[in-house]
């Protein structure tokens, strides 16, 4: 069991009336790549700033490496931050930017030179030492910000949407690079993002936040395959959610849910929200659903829904279908483009099937705004 490196204990932060972080507790293990994921305004940055020491919690305690640091200012905490805006010092060249923390800690001159060089090599920026930040591209500035933090060999590195300002291609590349660097240096990374794909690509664990609270915490796969709430289901990737009512939970480990839109579906009992008996929303990820022309009945052990194709979109690697069921619900289906099968056309009647194990259920959440719904 690795050491707990960062612990938040019942931390709350209020700005006047606004509750930015609401009674949040969290343990992050040493060497972990941990992501805080959630929509804008859910309290990610505030949480990170409390770990860094830039905000004082209204309530609760922050521990770093087992020590209570709640009352320590940022300059006395063994963490470093990569800011979203990079916050490079414009009046200093790259070398002095990277050396800033070492100079404050009175590290000997020749050691500074060695460690800066090392850090520059780590982020692949050798030879840029004399440049001013303004003379570099966004991606390069991002690397300087990373080097400036890593060169201090902190216990924990905090990253606040560090790739937010980069274009998509550079972003994908930096995601892999960040992951590589994290594995190379072995430092705990706490990574803030609103991009679910980014969080899933890089993290060991993800905390999905909403309204200053953690809705679900777990490994990317667990959070994706078995979302705990309707919000999480909607925020992480596309999902089909169908209203229904729990009918029976039989001995074989499968529960039956009668959908409002028609047939009943089965799912593992342990996928039901704890204590759920009445109304639930049943979900399945679009890529888990098979689509076939009507009449081609699938195996009996699969969940089956019939409907009509309302939209068929070709997006290269896959086909995307929207299917309207007889009961009026709409499902999205992704079919990998293997080039083998004839794909159903718009208006065609189809059968959708998927495995019970790929089904999950969540309690309906009344207060979801449409903005939060889109991951």
């Amino acid at each position, binding site marked *: 069991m690795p050491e707990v490196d960062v612990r938040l204990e019942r931390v709350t932060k209020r700005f006047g009336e606004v509750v930015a972080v609401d009674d949040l507790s969290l343990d992050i293990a040493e060497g972990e790549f941990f992501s805080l994921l959630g929509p804008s305004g859910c309290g990610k940055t505030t949480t990170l700033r409390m770990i860094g020491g*830039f905000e004082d919690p209204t309530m609760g305690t922050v521990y770093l490496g087992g020590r209570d640091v709640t009352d320590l200012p940022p300059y006395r905490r063994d963490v470093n931050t990569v800011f979203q805006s990079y916050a490079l010092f*414009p009046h200093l060249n790259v070398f002095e930017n990277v050396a*800033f923390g070492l100079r*404050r800690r009175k590290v000997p001159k020749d050691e500074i030179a060695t460690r800066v060089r090392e850090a520059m090599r780590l982020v692949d920026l050798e030879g840029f030492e004399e440049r001013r930040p303004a003379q570099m591209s966004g991606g390069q500035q991002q690397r300087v910000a990373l080097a400036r933090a890593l060169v*201090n060999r902190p216990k924990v590195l905090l990253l606040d949407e560090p790739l937010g300002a980069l274009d998509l291609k550079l972003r994908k590349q930096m995601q892999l690079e960040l992951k590589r660097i994290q594995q190379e240096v072995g430092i705990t990374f706490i990574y803030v993002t609103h991009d679910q794909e980014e969080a899933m690509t890089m993290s060991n664990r993800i905390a999905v936040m909403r309204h200053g609270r953690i809705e679900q915490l777990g490994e990317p796969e667990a959070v994706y395959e078995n979302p705990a709430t309707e919000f999480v289901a909607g925020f992480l990737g596309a999902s089909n959610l169908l209203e229904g009512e729990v009918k029976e939970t039989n001995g074989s480990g499968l529960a039956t849910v009668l959908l409002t839109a028609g047939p009943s579906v089965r799912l593992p009992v342990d996928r039901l929200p704890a204590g759920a008996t009445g109304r639930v929303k049943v979900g399945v990820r679009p890529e888990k659903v098979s689509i076939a022309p009507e009449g081609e009945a699938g195996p009996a052990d699969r969940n089956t829904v019939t409907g009509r194709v309302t939209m068929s979109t070709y997006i290269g690697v896959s086909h995307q279908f929207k299917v309207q069921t007889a009961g009026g619900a709409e499902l999205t289906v992704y079919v990998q483009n293997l080039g083998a099968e004839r794909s159903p056309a718009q208006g065609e009647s189809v059968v959708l099937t998927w495995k019970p194990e790929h089904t999950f259920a969540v309690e309906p959440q009344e207060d979801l705004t449409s903005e939060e719904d889109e991951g």
Partner: protein
Amino acid sequence: MSAVATAAPPPVERVRRRRWTSFILPVFTGAMIFYLASPVFLMVLYGFNDLAGERQVARFTCCTLVWWRQMFELPDLNRALRTSLTVAFPSAIAATALGTFIGLVLGRYRFSGRAVLNFVIFLAIAIPEIVLGSALLSMYVQVNEMRPFGATVPLGYTSILLSHISFSIAFVAITVRARVQGLDRTLENAAQDLFATPAVAFWRVTLPLILPGVVAGFLLAFVLSLDDFVITNFVNGQTDTFPTWVFGTSKIGVPPQVNVWGTVLFLAGVLTAGVSLAQAYRRRTGRAA
């Protein structure tokens, strides 16, 4: 592909036509420069006026260097210049220190008296000098009469210095405030994140970044002090600065040395402006490279 390209006719060359309206701006600019700069040219020119007497006359006779050679030959003028400089330096320094502090506070913090302070700064700039001058004079007279805590403000060097500091502070404060408002606060967060105490963060990050504003404020305060006539004329007692002395002599005729000194001050101004422009240019091109 290439076969098609070579077969195509060459692109048509376009002749750029100049409409008469495109001459408006250059002509207007030239006229403005002439209008604004001609008094300065005249001043420079009359520093070389080869006249018979010791007082400036309207007739220009070319040319002599005698006034340049004799620029230090008028003891009263020397004294006035020395007073001007010994006021301008300390008053600019004091105003820069106090104004920078106010500018930092105004640009940085939200506090309850902020709107009031902003308004006072605005007033200090907007208030007519003639009003400020007479108000300052009556205040000094009052102080000298009532002697609070035994303090007096002798009319002369002390009263001039205090007045100059007080009207310069506001100008420094707004120059620094503008700079502070343009400052990214996360830079200070970043400095503290990298183990700098607030004092070190100020010294290593904040101050260097607002320095152009501080320097501009200092130069402004210095020039305002050198140049001030209206307020100084109220509070100066028997002491003359360069402007009050020149004004005094203008009744009987200005000695040509005044034009010489005017030229010197003008060149100093041009030099300062040139240096700061060059620096700004270096910064900009440094960024673009």
